[in-house]
């Protein structure tokens, strides 16, 4: 029904999932080890690092968008390098970068809280069973897996629904960088409320579905 009204809709949905999915993948790969490290090890400046991390969890997406915009713009420190691995402004790559910056503190912060909640004695006991420090860190993450999944879900929730940063660095270009949230803004402005509502419902369902999937990954741990 909605699809017939807007043939580009599938494209928008796919791009949303692609951008946020890739951003989430990188955020998980960076955020989970970072959070575990901050939760499990004691180093000088840890307190300060935690304050920074918590601040990062509350970054307003528009500010992140502004930051990435300035970095990537032609005269910006990254944009002026013209390196192949640096995404250009108004491309999906730039949106991914902005979303990674938004999601990493969320994933790391919640992961840190989760591993800090693991019984301190557990690590000592697995070490007594012969674990290396790497193995005992893995054991702590595995024990905290329910919390780590929540951290990933929080990261996803933070970026799939975010509009400020993708609008700024993506530019909401039709067929290129338009995602669900920016499309909703646009349709609402045009007075196309039916379409805006339909897009909103799709966004909600997507979030709901991805949470269902992630909770399934969490599996039996909810019940025990």
């Amino acid at each position, binding site marked *: 029904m909605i699809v017939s009204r807007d043939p580009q809709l599938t494209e928008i949905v796919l791009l949303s999932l692609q951008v946020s999915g890739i951003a989430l993948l990188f955020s998980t790969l960076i955020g989970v080890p970072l959070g575990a490290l901050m939760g499990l090890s004691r180093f000088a400046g840890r307190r300060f690092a935690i304050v920074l991390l918590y601040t990062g969890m509350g970054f307003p997406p528009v500010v992140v968008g502004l930051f990435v915009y300035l970095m990537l713009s032609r005269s910006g420190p990254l944009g002026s390098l013209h390196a192949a691995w640096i995404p250009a402004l108004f491309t999906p790559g730039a949106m991914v970068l902005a979303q990674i910056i938004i999601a990493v503190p969320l994933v790391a912060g919640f992961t840190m809280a989760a591993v800090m909640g693991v*019984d301190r*004695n*557990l690590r*000592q*006991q*697995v*070490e*007594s*069973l*012969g*674990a*290396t420090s790497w*193995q005992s860190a893995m*054991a702590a993450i*595995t*024990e905290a897996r329910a919390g780590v999944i929540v951290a990933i879900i929080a990261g996803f929730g933070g970026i799939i629904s975010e509009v400020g940063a993708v609008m700024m660095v993506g530019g909401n270009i039709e067929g290129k960088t338009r995602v669900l949230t920016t499309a909703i803004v646009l349709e609402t402005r045009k007075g196309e409320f039916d379409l805006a509502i339909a897009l909103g419902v799709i966004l909600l369902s997507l979030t709901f579905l991805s949470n269902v999937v992630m909770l399934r990954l969490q599996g*039996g*741990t909810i019940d*025990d």
Partner: protein
Amino acid sequence: MSETLYELRGITKKYDKRSVLRVDELDIERGEILALVGPSGAGKSTLLRLLNFLETPSSGSIRFHGEIFDAARQPSLDIRRRVTTVFQRPVLLRRSVRANVAYGLRLRGERDADARIDETLAQVGLAEMAHQPARTLSGGEAQRVALARAMILRPDALLLDEPSANLDPYNVGLIESIASDLNQEQGTTIVLVTHNIFQARRLAHRVALLLEGRIIEVADVERFFTAPSDPRTRAFTRGEMIY
């Protein structure tokens, strides 16, 4: 039985400048069961953590397997893996009973040990509960899992910290007979911390009394209970200790 497994010399342990342990000299013989008794807070668990190389002494050295370790020199992974502890408050992994028992072997990369795992589960009477989540076990069952996951590693030294505190007589008997079998059949050296002096008397070859972080007396079990050389030992074994 005269070969020593551990030689502790001038060991002290401080936490935030508070000294909790001071062991001038203690030898642990290979193949013996040494019981450590003493009031709460005497430093028994702290001593076990040092013997398991989980913490470093503030000063002094521990000779183990012919090598000397101290605050600056920690044992290699191989050496550390020859000791393990059954803790006073065991924390099991959020996995099945079987996975908990298999855990130490997996850490060592041993993956085809199914028969050994089944055998160990049977020894502690948990064969039927192999697939139950470990966190749902009763206290006595959890304690037996903790013993199983340690003994399956066939350590040279097995450190037992109150392995049967708060258990019913059946479980106490089971754990004691397992400990004594391990010692007799595999020659496992056992250091047993216990509040139960009858248990010390039943199991141990030698007994050491720890008071406020110091070893007051170490003696063969008979002598420790019948003719101790320190009056505080006599007071402690009679339950008359005034701390």
